[in-house]
């Protein structure tokens, strides 16, 4: 049995992928495009799923897939350097090997969203796990209503995918609103928290599904804002983050109340998870 075949049977066995492209997004964030070994089907994923990336000799990290689900033969991850392992990950060069397990977890509700307007609210690096949804909507444009992307970052230099944001904004039936918390005088865009751009979004709450990804505090502010605008809790989805280790629900590191984020999430309906978000202990 080849290593690729063995890895497909054993979710705990990382499979070596080759780094094919490295793109600098911001001063501390890079996008890595990885190529799976031949004869593997592991590049198929649902938007919202994550993989465990292993930097040999350093450690393993859960990273959301940020690429196009319609593109085969490549897995793309956007990684921000926040510590030793992520720093090692973004230091990888083209041609080097990274161990990959997965993809794991639940995806965004792309099937349930067919026929609806799709509202995506992202904060900071949270745009990365939502980007596959944007690709998917554009790949299947007739199946979805309006696409509204609300994106907040700390400052203009922290904005991800700037060229893509501009090109998405030019697409029909698409509204992209970008804001930064702190802007210099050279920044001509919007300044304010992500909830401050909702008033410019042309929302139709009764026919919309919202998907949110960002820091948990930001998601709490955003869910409140969406509810104020008339969205029902069942139509709001969030991507949660905890300390994922095994990624298959064995180890319990990512337990969140009765759920394991790795297996039952990371995407949850707000209706399911709302009572837990208010608990101090979690």
């Amino acid at each position, binding site marked *: 049995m080849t290593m690729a075949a063995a890895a497909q049977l054993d979710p705990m066995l990382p499979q070596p992928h080759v780094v094919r492209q490295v793109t600098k997004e911001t001063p501390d964030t890079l996008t890595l495009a990885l190529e799976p070994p031949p004869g593997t089907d592991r590049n198929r994923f649902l938007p919202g799923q994550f993989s465990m990336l292993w930097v040999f000799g350093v450690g393993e990290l859960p990273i959301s897939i940020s690429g196009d689900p319609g593109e085969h033969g490549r897995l793309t991850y956007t990684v921000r350097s926040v510590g030793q392992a992520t720093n090692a990950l973004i230091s990888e060069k083209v041609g080097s090997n990274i161990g990959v397990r997965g993809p794991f977890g639940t995806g965004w509700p792309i099937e349930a969203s067919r026929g609806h307007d799709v509202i995506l609210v992202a904060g900071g690096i949270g745009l990365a796990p939502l980007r596959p949804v944007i690709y998917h909507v554009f790949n299947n444009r007739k199946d979805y209503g309006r696409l509204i992307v609300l994106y*907040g970052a700390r400052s203009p230099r922290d904005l991800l995918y700037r060229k893509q944001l501009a090109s998405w904004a030019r697409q029909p039936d698409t509204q992209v609103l970008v804001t930064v918390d702190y802007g210099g005088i050279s920044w001509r865009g919007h300044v304010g928290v992500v909830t401050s751009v909702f008033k410019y979004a042309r929302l139709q709450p009764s026919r919309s599904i919202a998907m949110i990804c960002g820091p948990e505090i930001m998601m709490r502010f955003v869910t409140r804002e969406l509810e104020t605008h008339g969205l029902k809790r069942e139509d709001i989805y969030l991507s949660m983050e905890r300390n994922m280790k095994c990624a298959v629900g064995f180890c319990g590191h990512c337990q969140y109340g009765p759920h394991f984020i790795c297996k039952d999430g990371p995407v949850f309906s707000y209706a399911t998870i709302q009572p837990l978000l208010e608990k101090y202990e979690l």
Partner: protein
Amino acid sequence: MRSGKVALEVFAPQHKPIVLETLGEGDILGWSWLLPPYIWKLHAHAVEDTAAIALDGKCLRTKCEQNHDLGYELLKRFAQIIVQRLEATRFQLLDVYAVK
């Protein structure tokens, strides 16, 4: 504001101005005329062609004193905006995207 975009800036000596917030179509710019000491705290800088309706604050205050229904209605509407901005400021102060 009828259209355009205005940046609310704070000026600090020997520093570039810091943009705290931008306002656009439908937004209200300024409420310092409504509450004592009636002093502007921020600079407003049009970053695009902007159309806005300006009102004489002192005159409006006098009318509110004469007509309390008008005064109460205005205060209710402005209080809502002030609360929204206060919440946004608290959210901004959390600096949620910073690496902790």
